[in-house]
């Protein structure tokens, strides 16, 4: 178990003028469940490889419990990793797979077996310990990968690199909730890399959102949902993401280019740059009264319906309440509780 610290950490690949990871200071608390969320190419896998030691950062230091491990190779870092595609040792049984990291470190067969039985119990692999690993399904193989990390009592952190990519939706639920339960039972730092917001939010206590080599926000799932610090976070979190309306803000009022006025819950000082009003589809409903909109499409998601509309020529997603027929002259009702103002992409603080 360990608290992982980054000190002015940065990564630049040879020949590239840009940072793959921009300089950052960060602390991953011991036994925390973290998710690293961002689109492909945002630097999240680079960051993960630096923690595991597969990649040595070009700048800055990595600390495990205050100890500088920047130069330590993977095998001396006590980290475990679960990869996107399941890695199992084909010729071995499940038991031998799980015992592999222990045997490599010189444990006796008996010692290893006790640990293996324990971990297999945690993961629900008990019944298949003596089957060949390569004949199992993708979800079971991922459990084995995870088990090889858990089996080591001294493991400082377990890293997950998009571990559910090849798992069917039904099994994803089972595996994900088991992972979460497991984190409760085995308090070890877990860092989960994904591009899938549902996976990130449901798994993590704290989500680290990355974009273009930079950490744009670290927060609890509800903080990322309620108060995205950056318009990127607003867009990336939520399905559909947050709506952004270009507007001008004066005090407690936002004015759209077409002249419609929207009352804001807070007062804002004059804002620099491009100003947008951010509001999530969950706080905007289609109604018979309010701002008139043009309906483009209704998406039936089964448990809710999303109305795609145009407000003053700007695309906007709103919720169509349960049981409501689409009104002949649709309007938009906005809940002031969900209104946020962004200047040049950054959340602007207003005064109550």
């Amino acid at each position, binding site marked *: 178990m360990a608290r992982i610290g980054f000190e002015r950490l940065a990564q630049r690949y040879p020949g590239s003028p840009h940072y793959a990871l921009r300089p950052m200071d960060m602390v991953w608390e011991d036994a925390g469940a973290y998710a690293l969320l961002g689109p492909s190419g945002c630097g999240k896998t680079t960051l993960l490889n630096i923690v595991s030691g597969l990649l040595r950062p070009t700048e800055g230091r990595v600390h495990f419990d205050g100890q500088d491990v920047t130069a330590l190779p993977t095998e001396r870092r006590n980290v475990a990793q679960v990869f996107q595609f399941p890695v199992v040792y084909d010729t071995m049984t499940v038991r031998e797979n799980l015992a592999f990291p222990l045997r490599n470190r010189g444990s006796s067969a008996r010692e290893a077996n006790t640990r293996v039985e324990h971990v297999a119990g945690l993961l629900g692999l008990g019944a298949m310990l003596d089957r060949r690993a390569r004949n199992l399904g993708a979800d079971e193989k991922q459990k084995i990968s995870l088990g090889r990390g858990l089996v080591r009592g001294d493991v400082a952190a377990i890293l997950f690199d998009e571990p559910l990519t090849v798992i069917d939706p039904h099994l994803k639920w089972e595996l994900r909730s088991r992972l979460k339960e497991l984190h409760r039972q085995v308090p070890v730092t877990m860092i989960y890399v994904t591009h899938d917001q549902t996976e990130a*939010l449901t798994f993590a206590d704290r989500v680290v959102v990355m974009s273009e080599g930079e950490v744009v926000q670290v927060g609890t799932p509800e903080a990322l949902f309620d108060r995205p610090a950056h318009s990127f976070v607003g867009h*990336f979190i939520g399905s559909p*993401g947050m709506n952004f309306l270009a507007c001008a803000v004066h005090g407690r009022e936002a004015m759209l280019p077409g002249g419609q006025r929207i009352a804001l819950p807070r007062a804002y000082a004059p804002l620099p740059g491009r100003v947008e009003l951010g509001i999530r589809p969950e706080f905007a409903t289609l109604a018979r009264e309010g701002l008139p909109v043009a309906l483009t499409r209704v998406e039936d998601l089964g448990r809710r319906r999303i109305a795609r509309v145009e407000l003053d020529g700007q695309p906007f997603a709103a919720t169509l309440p349960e049981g409501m027929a689409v009104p002949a002259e649709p309007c938009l009702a906005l809940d002031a509780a969900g209104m946020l103002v962004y200047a040049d992409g950054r959340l602007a603080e207003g005064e109550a």
Partner: protein
Amino acid sequence: MSVALEGLGLSAAGQVVLHPVTLELAGGLPNVLLGPTGAGKTTLLRLLAGLDRPSEGRLLAEGRDVTGLDVRKRSVAMVYQQFINYPAFTVFENIAAPLRVARLGRAEIEARVQDAARLLRLTPYLARKPLELSGGQQQRTAIARALVKRAPLVLMDEPLANLDYKLREELREELPKLFAESGSVFVYATTEPAEALLLGGRVATLSEGRVTQSGRAGEVFRRPADLATARVFSDPPLNEAPARIEAGRLALATGEALPVPVGGLQDGPCTVGIRAHQLSLEPLPGAVALPAVVRVSEVTGSESYVHLDVGPLPWVVLAPGVRRPEPGEAATVWLDPQRCLVFGADGRLAAVSALAEAA
């Protein structure tokens, strides 16, 4: 263009790979094949493409029997889960490739490629090589190549599975527009119920090599014909409880009576199914209270998936707001009889309550 499957089935080595399917596929809206890995989606696509010969049944295109026709004589386009492009060609040449094979004129090729590129928003990248593009752009190139042929039948095998979540969301929104504009028949295989709903077309659910139901996505979702369909078309998984009908009354195996109209149903065992969003952790009028123990809670920001053990049954409740009950904590799940699906002993849908059909 229309394609019809008449009892199309495939057996190999004495085993049924795909049970006979009868299905009408039409243009305009996507035809989604929904089912888990190994349910038979790809088998069905291969039969439609003519890559495999069916062991029974007929395949009609515009009423013409094309069952035995070689794949090269049919005009189909296919998009795969992996981004398949010619790495040495530019995006323009990638899209133009099938037109070059067909020996179309320069001007015609130029016009068609520009059209397809505009539709898929690839115009700025036409001069680049596929590997210089993002995953989404690479897959859009592959889709453009499939469209440019104007093949009457376009088959897509989990085309978005390898893309980032947000990109997937974007393309799911764009694709239906594309389907509507093109005159072709689109068949789209996916494992994700949400995708089947979002694409907003017709859906055929597959389970263990059998097409279990077909119809408009929303209708199939709300009125699954049988338990297998309801399972395939639920994400999170369908919550199930064994129950019994005695003298026209339904009761859970644990004893709670559920006032669901089950008129006409034989006495005997049955299964009650209810989706996560139809359950509640707050008292509902008329709902039955079931004692449960919390296993784990997953917060999505605005909602929480609370996993609980209701007796021996692992259930998931989608509750509004942020909830973080401690594992092991006791909780009460409110089961509204108005929102249940009841499946008979044979798995067929026996009763669907009024509100189970509401969004």
